[in-house]
């Protein structure tokens, strides 16, 4: 048993041990600064608005003061990791360590922080600093622990091969901290598809603390298709931050899947920094048993003439607890903004819980902004329609709840991703009822 202070002590201890063996000494000052900021932050209590609905007990009950020191060997990649129809360049990380054996990079430019040149180093430090200007507790921790990471750079001439990053958690990560870091950089007019995927090897029931920081900088006129798929086993803890920086006339399409874990918390920020940019941010989260899942999204319209559309759907069963916090912040100068947000939830049991909160802050007067959040039980009319065609109630309920999320899968840019997800999610439903 430890308490909140121990969590911070543990983190410091871990950071110091990592510092001894680092290959990125150019990041040392950054790490120290981040760690110092992390240590000064008060531990979230129930009154801390940002973590109001998160139960962080699992984090302080156990110790996560170590990391996995080398790549765990696995014979073959999990079936669940295979998205072969996508024909992507694949990067595999096992417990945070790059696995050359299972990766295959043919066309895209991929740089590890440990191999970054001066120019790249400067870019990385700046970007990570910018990411943590919000001083999110777990992102500061990530900053303090960032030893290596991946920089993906795309330009106009880049291959159209998607990049598929697979994070696999093995049983070796039990009670360890796995911090990882990714920066995606699209130069002017570049187009790219990036998939971030999180899995548990052989569905092992391991409790590890994963802490992923992803930064996506989308240049003028560039287009990013992004997927973030959290398909880990339910003992996982994940505290992640994901930022998108949109420049002039750029486009983002980001899709999320989040299965519940012991704690699973993702903070997604979309920054419209220059006019003409558009963001589609969509996702589904599914929690059952005693799982938690939490999406905090924040769309910042800082300049005029940008648009954003956001649709998240949640399916919550058992005694699971889900949180969706969708903030839209429209600055005074961000005239002609069009921002829409919809969050719909379906509760599959009486004990399931959803806390949904759309948060609008609008300081410009000539904008169109719409938001809506609903929480519902199964639609009785639709249920009766299926029953009246001979479909048993249990099966009808499965079909309707799956249909509720399948609607979003139908709109994915890559049908291969939807085809990949459908059987995984359908199976989950069959088990859950």
């Amino acid at each position, binding site marked *: 048993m430890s308490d909140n202070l121990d969590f911070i002590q543990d983190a410091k201890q871990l950071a110091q041990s990592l510092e001894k063996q680092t290959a990125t000494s150019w990041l040392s000052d950054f790490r120290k600064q981040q760690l110092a900021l992390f240590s000064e932050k008060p531990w979230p209590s129930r009154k801390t608005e940002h973590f109001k609905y998160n139960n962080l007990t699992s984090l302080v009950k156990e110790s996560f003061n170590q990391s996995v020191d080398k790549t765990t060997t696995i014979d073959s990649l999990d079936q669940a990791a295979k998205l072969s129809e996508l024909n992507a360049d694949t990067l595999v990380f096992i417990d945070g360590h790059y696995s050359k054996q299972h990766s295959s990079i043919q066309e895209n430019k991929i740089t590890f922080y440990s191999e970054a040149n001066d120019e790249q180093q400067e870019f990385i430090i700046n970007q990570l600093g910018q990411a943590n200007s919000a001083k999110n507790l777990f992102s500061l921790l990530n900053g303090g622990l960032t030893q290596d990471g991946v920089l993906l750079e795309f330009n106009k001439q880049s291959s159209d091969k998607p990049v598929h990053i697979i994070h696999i958690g093995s049983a070796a990560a039990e009670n360890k901290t796995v911090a990882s870091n990714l920066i995606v950089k699209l130069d002017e007019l570049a187009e790219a598809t990036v998939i971030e995927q999180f899995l548990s090897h052989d569905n092992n029931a391991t409790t590890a603390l994963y802490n992923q920081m992803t930064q996506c900088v989308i240049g003028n006129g560039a287009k990013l298709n992004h997927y973030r798929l959290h398909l880990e086993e339910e003992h996982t803890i994940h505290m992640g931050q994901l930022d998108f920086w949109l420049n002039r006339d750029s486009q983002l399409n980001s899709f999320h899947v989040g299965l519940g874990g012991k704690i699973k918390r993702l903070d997604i920020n979309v920054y419209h920094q220059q006019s003409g940019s558009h963001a589609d941010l969509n996702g589904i989260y599914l929690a059952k048993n005693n799982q938690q899942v939490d999406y905090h999204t924040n769309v910042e319209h800082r300049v005029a003439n940008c648009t954003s559309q956001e649709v998240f759907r949640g399916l919550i069963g058992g005694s699971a607890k889900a949180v969706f916090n969708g903030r839209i912040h429209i600055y005074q100068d961000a005239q002609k903004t069009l921002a829409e947000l919809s969050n719909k939830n379906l509760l599959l049991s009486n004990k399931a819980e959803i806390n949904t909160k759309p948060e609008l802050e609008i300081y410009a007067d000539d904008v169109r902004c719409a938001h809506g959040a609903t929480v519902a039980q199964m639609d*009785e*009319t*639709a249920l*009766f*329609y*299926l*029953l*009246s*065609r*001979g*479909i*048993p*109630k249990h*099966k*009808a309920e499965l*079909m*309707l709840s*799956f*249909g*509720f*999320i*399948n*609607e979003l899968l*139908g709109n994915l840019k890559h049908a291969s991703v939807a085809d990949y997800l459908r059987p995984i999610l359908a199976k989950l439903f069959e088990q859950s009822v």
Partner: protein
Amino acid sequence: MLSINNLIAEVEGKTILKGLNLEVKPGEVHAIMGPNGAGKSTLGNVLAGREQYKHTDGTATLDGKDIFELEPEERAAEGMFLAFQYPVEIPGVSNLEFLKASMDAIAKYHKEPEMDSVSFMKLAREACKAVDLDQNFLKRGVNEGFSGGEKKRNEIMQMMLLKPKLCILDETDSGLDIDALQVVAKGVNELRSRDRAFVVVTHYQRLLDYIIPDYVHVLADGKIVKSGGKELAVELEKKGYSWLEQEVA
């Protein structure tokens, strides 16, 4: 086939059907006509087993089986089919998946093997064509974004695939233009057979120009107040319902 005796049913605590009697034999087409509020929709819904429609007294049997002892899905598997007045849109569940699940469930109920996917696809495509719907309707969500006419044609398509013995058409003509009405009627007429019966619930005589009934019943205030042949429908169209209500009163 269908035998209803002194059926009393209520919706939200209000008694709507007040002792309804109806006898339907295989191969027959019965039209139930009546003014708004007479209980026409309640009849179809209470027979199909919709939760808010409560049977409080009387009996209804389908080939001797007490239908009120059966769950809605069991009634369907026993061969009852309610064509909805307002077919429900279910985004995210494809029409194809829905039809397959339905056929499989009914096969399972009768302890028969499920149809293989290839044969099913062939059958579904044929049914789709028969009701003049484009094949892509099979892939779309159930009734999602369908026009009124397309929804009704989808109901007929389901009927073709499920081959029920008793079809109850609940105001199938509402919201249909004359072309759609003809397509729907054609589908129904092709399904008419000596083993299958139809109960056609409608407010207007128009539908009965295309689906010629053997019997016409007038439902008023929860009871059948008059029965006759197809000529009764024509008479009702001319005179309206009020003379009947006065006659009964």
